[in-house]
């Protein structure tokens, strides 16, 4: 069976570090899964993500997307085929919302009519009224709205794989819950493979059909949320679950 994403013994070391940021990772992800990658900062989760769209190049091992080695495909083509969302959003401040969303379609030379239709479709999909937002600029939008645009921009050419690097890390908790639910809905409707990096255990367990737990560049456990809770692999996973439990107890005192 061909996997949407496959890591074969992949390692990545940064120039002056004495350790591997990603350490001999093996991984199989099926098409249509919503995978969350959970770990504390510096555990290599962002690096793992950036190896897929080759913002970082692996030192060792192979990464296959739908059976195709990413090294053998032109890097620009690989990136245009993959949706990419980052925490800081990175909207282009000098371009209107419509132009931001149209970035990759323009790079792929779609005709203007098709682009306009797609922009409106994506704005609606991400919960932004096209007539109201099409011609605005990023600095006129709230943080949550900007992240919606970031998501719409990443979905523009209907990529089969979406990489999301802590996309809701900078929005307040109310908006965050709303965006989480909407993202799950979008995922369910589109049948794409999502890879979602987070350091928030609740977010990871809520969103993921399966959860990857990383520590020091290694995958500690990769399973469904239920199985991880039932059988934590080691003390690190234990401590993560324990932190969630403590949080629940804390809120239990008030609610």
């Amino acid at each position, binding site marked *: 069976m061909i996997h949407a994403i496959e890591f074969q013994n992949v390692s990545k070391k940064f120039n002056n570090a004495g350790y591997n940021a990603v350490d001999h990772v093996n991984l199989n992800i099926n098409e249509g899964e919503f995978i969350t990658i959970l770990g504390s900062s510096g555990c290599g989760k962002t690096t793992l993500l950036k190896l897929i*769209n080759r*913002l970082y190049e692996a030192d060792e091992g192979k990464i296959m997307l739908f059976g195709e080695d990413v090294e053998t495909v032109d890097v*620009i*083509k*690989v*990136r*245009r*085929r993959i949706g*990419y969302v*980052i925490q*800081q*959003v*990175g*909207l*282009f*401040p*000098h371009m209107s919302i419509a132009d931001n969303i149209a*970035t*990759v379609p323009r*790079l792929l030379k779609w005709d203007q009519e098709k682009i306009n239709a797609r922009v409106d479709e994506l704005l609606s999909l991400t919960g932004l009224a096209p007539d109201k937002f099409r011609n*605005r*600029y990023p*600095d*006129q939008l709230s943080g949550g709205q900007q992240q919606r645009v*970031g998501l719409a*921009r*990443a979905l523009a050419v209907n990529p089969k794989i979406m990489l999301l690097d802590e996309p809701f890390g900078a929005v307040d908790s109310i908006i965050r819950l709303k965006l989480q639910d909407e993202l799950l809905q979008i995922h369910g409707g589109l049948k794409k493979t999502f890879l979602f990096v987070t350091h928030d255990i609740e977010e990871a367990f809520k969103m993921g059909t399966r959860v990857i737990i990383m520590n020091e560049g290694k995958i500690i456990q990769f399973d469904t949320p239920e199985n991880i809770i039932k059988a934590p692999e080691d003390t690190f996973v234990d401590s993560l679950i324990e932190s969630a439990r403590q949080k629940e107890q804390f809120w239990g005192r008030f609610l």
Partner: protein
Amino acid sequence: MTTYFIKYHDKLLSALLEHLEIVFICLLFSLLLASLLTVLCMYSTLLSKVLINLFSVIYSVPSLAMFAMLIPLTGLGKVTAIIVLTAYNQYLLLNTFVTGLNEVDKSVVDAATGMGMTRMQVLTKIRLPLSKGSLFAGLRLATVSTIGIAAIAATINAGGLGSILFDGLRTMNVNKILWGSILSSGLAIAANALLGFAERKIVIRKNAKNL
């Protein structure tokens, strides 16, 4: 002073035009060369460090010494002046251009790269429009500096307003000194104001459109 102007206004005018000609040619060459070097620098941080350091060394050589060093190679006159001025401008332009382009928000550049823009597309579609302010600042700096140093180039027979000024100094002619200084500084001030006006028009247009 006014009588001097009435009597010699054609001479003053031709010196002014000659000055403008030198400045214009210099800026044209400077911009072409600096643009090319800037693009190269965006592909290699090592090269950008080497070039900026090299031009900063050149820039720190006094203009008179620089003219003198080049005379054996390119002789007296405009050519030598233009070479020296263009070399000086490389420091001013390259430094502001490269700094400006690199100061663009990293997350914006990351997003653009991650979405599959080539380095050149990131440069032209993202970095360039977002650093218009610095690019203009560099151009203004280079223009004003070129107008000033071009006056000194009169010492090597490059002509322009400097020749009136230096003539005046040599013959202790106050009228010539005054008109030479007024016109060359006036030119620098006017050019600076004009570019400032253009800068406001171009750089601030986007925000105006938003309102």
